[in-house]
């Protein structure tokens, strides 16, 4: 089949969503299909721009290319998943979140700050409710995303997990004296919470952050905060790590700390499990909660400095328990049976 993966791309920003699309493309090709990624540029402000992009997506014609039919469109992200096609399957990574669960969020809200925010929110919701159902099948990349679709739009979606990129490369090694926190540096990932928790640990806990900031200024802000908290000597920033270096960090760390705000899916959890490392996450972290079992493969704690500090201290002081939890995590990953082949089979059925 000739398959188009329809997604969006915010220029100069690269994260899990881009890796997701690329992983799907490779898997489709490996299964013998022709696959191409069509990424629509996306800008979400001012609010009217969101509607402009929605209309732009509706006007794209992906039914054929140079006289040859496109057999299937797989839509991943808003508003690219609105692109019409007679044979469309959605595998939704997330909707436009500030029109839904983040509408009123204290730090991640966006639309609510504009006078026409409510009108735009309502239009986005209406379009989702009406147009997602154009697809012959609707999948979500996690239970969390499926739950939101049901809760806000009344749409049933089947959760469909997939392996993280380079899953075959992960291994484990002896734990060294640091926690690993790989992620884009931005408010939703909550590096700030971890820095403030570090200030409250009783043990000399160290954290190695890996990832580039969405905004350079925010990255500087985090570094400045670590200086202000006088924990710079316990913090490292690896901004330009290669894939192999990341795998190496996972292998050598004591555990992974990953406390994002209501993450859609979150590769980090699965990568930690592949590296047989325990994961500390938070009760409001979304996707990771589908995989971490409290006090069995990691710790699930309240999203406050004290609770995170206590979790860091616990794993820091009990290395044997940490190792047991890590191994249990790897076993749990194996039992999930995640495979791209299964994903491709479901999406192309």
């Amino acid at each position, binding site marked *: 089949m000739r398959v188009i993966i329809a997604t969006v791309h915010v220029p100069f920003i690269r994260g899990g969503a881009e890796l997701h699309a690329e992983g799907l493309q490779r898997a489709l090709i490996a299964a013998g299909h022709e696959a191409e990624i069509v990424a629509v540029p996306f800008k979400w402000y001012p609010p009217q721009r969101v509607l402009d992009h929605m*209309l732009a997506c*509706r006007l794209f014609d992906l039914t054929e290319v140079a006289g040859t039919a496109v057999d299937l469109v797989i839509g991943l992200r808003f508003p690219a998943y609105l692109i019409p096609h007679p044979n469309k399957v959605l595998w939704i990574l997330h909707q436009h979140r500030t029109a839904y669960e983040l509408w009123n969020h204290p730090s991640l809200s966006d639309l609510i700050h504009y*006078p*026409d925010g409510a*009108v735009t929110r309502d*239009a986005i919701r209406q379009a989702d409710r*009406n147009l997602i159902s154009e697809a012959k099948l609707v999948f979500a990349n996690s239970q969390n995303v499926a739950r939101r679709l049901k809760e806000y739009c009344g749409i049933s979606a089947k959760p469909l997990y997939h392996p993280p990129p380079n899953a075959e490369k992960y291994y484990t090694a002896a734990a060294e004296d640091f926690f690993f926190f790989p992620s884009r540096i931005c408010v939703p990932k909550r590096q700030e919470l971890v820095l403030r928790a570090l200030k409250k640990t009783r043990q000399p806990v160290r954290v190695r952050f890996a990832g580039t900031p969405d905004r350079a200024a925010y990255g500087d802000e985090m570094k400045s905060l670590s200086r202000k908290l006088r924990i710079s000597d316990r913090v490292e920033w690896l901004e330009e790590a290669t894939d192999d270096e990341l795998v190496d960090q996972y292998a050598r760390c004591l555990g992974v700390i990953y406390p994002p705000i209501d993450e859609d899916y979150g590769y980090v959890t699965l990568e930690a499990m592949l590296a047989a490392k325990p994961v500390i996450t938070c009760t409001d972290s979304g996707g990771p909660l589908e995989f971490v079992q409290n006090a069995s493969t990691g710790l699930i704690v309240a999203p406050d400095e004290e609770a995170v500090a206590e979790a860091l201290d616990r794993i820091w002081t009990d290395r044997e328990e940490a190792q047991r939890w890590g191994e249990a995590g790897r076993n749990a990953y194996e039992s999930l049976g995640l495979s791209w082949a299964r994903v491709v089979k479901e999406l192309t059925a």
Partner: protein
Amino acid sequence: MKVNWFCPLPPARSGIAVDFFRTILPALSSRAEVTLWTDQTDWSADLASHAPVRTFRLKEMPWPELNQADITFFNLGNNHLFHGTIWEVSRLLPGIAILHDLRLDDFFENWCPGLFPPSSSLDQSLNNLRVALENSLGIVVHTEDAYERLNTFNRWIVAHVPLPFALPPLANGARRKRSLAPPYRLIVFGFIHQNRRLTALLEALGTLPDRDRFRLEIYGELWRPDLVKETIAKYGLQRQAIIKGFVAETALDEALASADLVINLRYPSGEASGSQLRIWSHGLPSIVTRAGWFARLPETAVAHVSPEREVADIQEHLNHFLIDPERFARMGTEGKRLLYPRHAPETYVDALLELSAEVLEFRPRAAVHQLVRRAGERMSPWIGSFHSNDPLRSVANEILSLSGQARTR
């Protein structure tokens, strides 16, 4: 339902603040979670017992807080001092405009001179209004005439909601019995501008053979006291017509409680009248002009006067009154029956909330309407080069699909 309410607040010297708003506030705050918004520096302390009062400044609008509400109401009237900043906010935040005047000509002229073409006709006034309210989702008007005119634009959800009126304490309780014997007490009250036709009334009374069987009391501010006095003198009505001037509300209600007939003429303008509701609240018969809102009042509740033969009609009604005062008394009773529940504050607030629900359902389409405009602007440079309408149809279809509406062929 959470409601933002933009309105001049008491003690602002505005009828909308003092009469209208005071009348509906208890019902509004008991039926919705209301936040009052103002840029006034002071307001009556007792408002806080009904709803929180928040202040705003145009340059630093607290949009996240405003967006917590389900819907926002903007009270708009013709006085730029009370409604200028409210209108400015309404241009940014889509909501429901409560239109207290259909013609906002004075408002535009004083608040934003030059922004709108001068209005020499009602059509021009309405066109200005259309532009001024283009960001509104819904409009509330108080007359059927305004409702019909605004509906022709097919631009907003328009609701005609009869003016609210709360019974004054005197009208609720014991009231002096009217004499129904001459001399009968006639009353004119309010801000007596030219449109209140006082000189015509004085002419009718002055040339009426049985004029001595009436006493006319004139309450309120006169637009030209000299002219009124001259007219009274001209017809020798010094004994029958007494200028009482501006009096407190309670004094006016006391006067109405013992009156026999009220003359409430309006021409050429005939907007919905709080005065008429007050008349009815006292169970009083009234003579009104057959124009605008008043023209639609039932003959069983008022006596109509044609603008083109008002003196003759007034005299005819006064003569009929002398012959059969009981028939007029029944008009007053019928008027009072009409007042409730039709004009009850609770009825008014219920209508506002029903409209809100309708507007909320429509709101997603409002954003799409803006999209239509922007798409048109973007396409206009090359729109003439199309050989067929297909590209336009395609855009129109997809805009319709976003708004959940059926596509065109």
